């Protein structure tokens, strides 16, 4: 028969409880050593994770393919149609590109394409159910740092929240902790595109209640004041606008332009603008 001493039992649990609460408090307050410990853990596990990823990625791809088989067929035909349209537009855009570059130089505006971009592969998603992040195979040794914007050809993906030697974690737009200062396409109204718990869409907050925002128009990063994102990166499309009489806020839902569920390759932008000292209203607070 196994006899457990009650006092010893309690002391173990109390010790673990106190240690956990101390760690939680230190991390919430933004303790440097804890951030460092996360980086070390990523670096230690990175070589094993790289091998494991190579072994397991076919399994993940297969499961992903099986569970999304129905939608993939529709998506394929839709994408073919879009590709044809985009090929035509791309040819037209070439002419505008050089003109735009010249004008930007004349006006001395920060130009997104001038950003030094680091190409990276998405190696895994979030291991938890309450955060929306991806891990990329580039880290501080490649020049990736916290706060940098992450994009694909379609638009903004999110920002780097943690970087170790060979890996970095990007917080996706849809994470509730993510907020991006944006400007609307037509009315040039500013707001903050905010992630929503468990939703694939975003909410546009802090918009002038009298502003005219139309469904279907795009929103771009504003790059204004001390925003951490360079300006003019496409972020999302306005999906729904509900304006109720007497209410001080419009209910605006945005659909991200990037398919955040099937990210494979991304680019990390080294912003040409100086690092922000203060966040724009409602945007993510800078990491200390």
């Amino acid at each position: 028969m196994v006899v457990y001493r009650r006092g010893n039992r309690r002391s173990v649990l109390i010790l673990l409880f106190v240690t956990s609460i101390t760690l939680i408090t230190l991390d919430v307050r933004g303790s440097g050593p804890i951030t460092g410990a996360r980086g070390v853990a990523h670096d230690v596990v990175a070589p094993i994770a790289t091998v494991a990823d190579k072994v397991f990625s076919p399994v993940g791809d297969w499961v992903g393919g099986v569970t999304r088989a129905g939608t993939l067929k529709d998506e394929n035909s839709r994408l073919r149609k879009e590709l044809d349209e985009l090929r035509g537009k791309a040819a037209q855009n070439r002419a505008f590109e050089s003109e735009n570059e010249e004008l930007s130089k004349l006006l001395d505006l920060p130009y997104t394409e001038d950003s030094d971009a680091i190409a990276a592969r998405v190696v895994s998603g979030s291991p938890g159910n309450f955060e929306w992040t991806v891990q990329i195979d580039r880290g501080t040794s490649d020049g990736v740092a916290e706060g940098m914007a992450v994009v694909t050809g379609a638009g903004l993906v999110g920002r780097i929240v943690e970087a170790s030697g060979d890996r970095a974690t990007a917080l996706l737009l849809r994470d509730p902790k993510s907020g991006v200062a944006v400007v609307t396409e037509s009315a040039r109204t500013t707001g903050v595109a905010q992630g929503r718990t468990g939703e694939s869409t975003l909410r546009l907050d802090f918009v002038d209640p009298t502003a005219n925002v139309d469904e279907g128009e795009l929103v771009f990063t504003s790059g204004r004041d001390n925003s951490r994102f360079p300006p003019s990166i496409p972020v999302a499309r306005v999906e729904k606008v509900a304006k109720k009489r007497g209410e001080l806020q419009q209910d605006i839902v945005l659909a991200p332009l990037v398919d955040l569920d099937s990210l494979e390759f991304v680019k990390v932008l080294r912003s040409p603008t100086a690092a922000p000292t203060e966040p724009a209203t409602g945007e993510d607070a800078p990491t200390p």
Partner: protein
Amino acid sequence: MTWLVRLKLAALVLTTVVLQTTLFPDLRLFGVAPDLVLVATIAVASRVGPETGAVYGFASGLVIDLFLQTPLGLSALSFAVVAYGIGILHTGLSRTPRFIAAMLGGAGGLAGGLIFVVLAALAGEDQVIAFRTIWVLVLAAVYDALLAVPMFPVARWAVGSTGAETPAIRGARST
């Protein structure tokens, strides 16, 4: 507990953390991933009892916390409490019911998820306060219950006969 058992348990922590961070993000069912590290904690706690189980749960939770954006210590505390509870529960069992692994995996997974959510909300992680959280907890618990079936033999291998065996295990061994 011998050094070999400690070494095996450390290897189990590392293996489950690597699987949780590489394989399971791609094996989500309806957008929900299981918690393999928690399942391993439950399996180990059912073999070694409350104290050692709680220490294992704390250690494994701390390691997985390093890979999450939620505050460090949340999973550690949740896993330690669940392991302690599972250890006590299993100690009190006079015989091992059928499907014990799935039952403990499901119940422990649900309890662990609930404790994590409550602690996260208290720590200011507002993203966990949503209707979807109920769905996530229930589905993850079902997933955990399924994973517990192969995980219990692994824990048995890791702990061997040197762990603080519970009366239920002794009973099962003697029959």
